[in-house]
């Protein structure tokens, strides 16, 4: 199944081993520009490993990964400009606790993009407004609720103006009351045409936002389909079992 439009992310036969254990078994996946892909699957299925390979937090050992047509070579210096097109949001937020919310957002702009402080703060405030917490800008991350922290993490990633956003279980560490505020921000982001790859178990989000749902197990893509097809007529027994357990 090849999506229309230009490819934002291409995985070609990507394999990854941890010692003798193969976490990814020759994955092939293409994500088109502006496409929103939800990746789901049981724990240990390799979905987090895959998303972490895309921005090279983990190095794959076999196969090719291309971002907007440019292959990653594994040399941090050469890959840096390519990887800067991706932004990442983590399950455990990973905000920098010793910096204020605003500093978390401006930090990479001033240090990586060498932007003047005032300009960086303008961009940061615009994104904090977008995730609806500009009033928390001067606080420290640990003074915020989990949902607010995750929204800051999204704003922080957006500040670097990525063309692709990767979400690694963004709501799994949140209290039920806070999941919605984060999902709302993500739905809004989807409305702007951002390319998104989201590892999540929020099937409601998948139904309303995703163009495509990818189901993984044991380091392989079992099946992928548009959400309406995926949820109503999964082809594999493994997918049916998984859906019956989480829905």
């Amino acid at each position: 199944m090849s999506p229309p439009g230009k490819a934002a992310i291409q995985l070609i036969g990507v394999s990854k081993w941890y010692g003798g254990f193969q976490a990814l078994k020759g994955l092939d996946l293409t994500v088109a520009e502006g496409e929103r892909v939800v990746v789901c699957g049981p724990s240990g299925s390799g979905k987090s490993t895959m998303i972490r390979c895309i921005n090279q937090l983990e190095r794959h050992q076999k196969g090719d990964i291309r971002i907007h047509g440019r292959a990653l070579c594994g040399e941090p210096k050469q890959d840096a400009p390519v990887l800067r097109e991706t932004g990442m949001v983590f399950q455990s937020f990973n905000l920098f606790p010793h910096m204020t919310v605003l500093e978390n957002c401006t930090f990479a702009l001033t240090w990586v993009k060498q932007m003047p402080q005032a300009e960086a703060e303008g961009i940061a405030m615009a994104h904090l407004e977008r995730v609806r917490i500009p009033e928390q800008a001067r606080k420290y991350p640990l003074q915020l609720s989990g949902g607010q922290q995750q929204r800051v993490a999204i704003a922080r990633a957006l500040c670097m103006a990525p063309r692709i956003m990767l979400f690694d279980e963004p709501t799994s560490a949140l209290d039920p009351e806070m999941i919605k505020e984060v999902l709302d921000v993500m739905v809004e982001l989807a409305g702007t045409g951002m390319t998104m790859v989201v590892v999540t178990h929020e099937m409601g989000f998948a139904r309303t936002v995703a163009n495509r749902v990818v189901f993984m197990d044991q380091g392989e893509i079992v099946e992928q389909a548009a959400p309406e097809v995926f949820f109503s007529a999964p082809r594999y027994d493994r997918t049916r079992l998984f859906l019956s357990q989480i829905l």
Partner: protein
Amino acid sequence: MSDAPLVFTPRPADPPPPSTIGVVGWMRANLFSSLPNAILTFLGGYIFYVVVTTIIDWALVKAVWEAENRRQCLDLVGRSGACWPGVVEWIPNLIYGLYPKDQVWRINIGFLILLAWAVPLWLPRVKSKVAIGLSLVLLYPLLASYFFHGGAQGVVWTALIALGGAAFLWVWLTTLAEMRFGLGFGALVARLAGAADDERARRIGWGALAALYVLALLVVSQLRFVEVPTRVWGGLFLTLVISGIGIAFSLPAGVLLALGRRSQMPLIRVFCVTFIELFRSVPLITILFMFNTMLPLFLPAGVEVNRLLRAIVAVCLFASAYMAEIVRGGLQAIPKGQYEAAAAMGLGFWQSTSLIILPQALRIMIPSIVGNFIGLFKDTTLVSIIGLFDLLSMSRAVGEDTRWLGLFIEPFFFITMIYFVFCFLMSQYSLNLERRLGEGQRR
């Protein structure tokens, strides 16, 4: 039954029961919670009372304050009261060692400059604190050697000392400029000179720094002090020199060694592991002996390395090995997610280490780092064994003075107080630092 939902109003909070708060509540909970605890409280109070009154009795009430020699003290109160005149007479030696009396002002000036250099670090509105702190660690020692040691200087040494002098001038000019105008020294000069664009402003700023350097060069090349060889350095002064250099050196060296030990590069890792394990497995006293007696055997004949320098190098290497393990512990406490978030935002290794990881790691390491500093400060007493006259050796010398023969307890008591004051201040400062840096980091 109507369809409108019931309205939930939270109950107001009750005050805590009176017997659990205030002084009475605290005493009841902590001192007299049960019969055995009450007995222990009284017993502890009694022991405390006896110890404190005995010390006060000896050191103050029965003490002799005026006497010509120890004999007079003993005739007056025997051994039941302290004999302070000997200590008072020796205070200059305890503090400055055998440093020539007419040159002692140089030490005082040197330490005043040190204080003045550090003061801007605590002033609000000073933005260049990192540069000031770095210059303090890197360039102050040059100026200190100019004052403390003095003597003839070669061209290179003069140039370096002038660098220290210029840095000190820059620190205060920039501090004043930032407090008054919110601009650094260079930027302020550029503003006053009416620089048109950034490039010109930068050039004028560098020009101003060069002018400072020339000024400092003129001063230090004209103004020279008599050489005071390190063999007459001693007392508290020597202790502060050794421990100061040890502290200033061991923290950065420890950070580098710890990073090296975690490095992916085998050569660097092996070197760091070997260094750390070697110096941590040997007592400091052995290292001091090694450097003092065996190092000259390895050096070509005629090359003489100053005895003080040998001791300082030994202390520095020993302290950095310990510091490295403390820093490594701190680095390990930082969650992997912090590295990942930094990497995901495009930061390289040195940026994420110095801006994300180390600030967090150093904060949690403050208690152990300061503990190490305190240990280092006290360990410098060991240099007395290789023939340097530190505070401890000087205090022993009091009892060997013919007039004060056998007067050992009083000088020891006195230097104990000095050590206590220094270590206590360090420890209090670390607690204070911990609180300030911990702002916003607790839930």
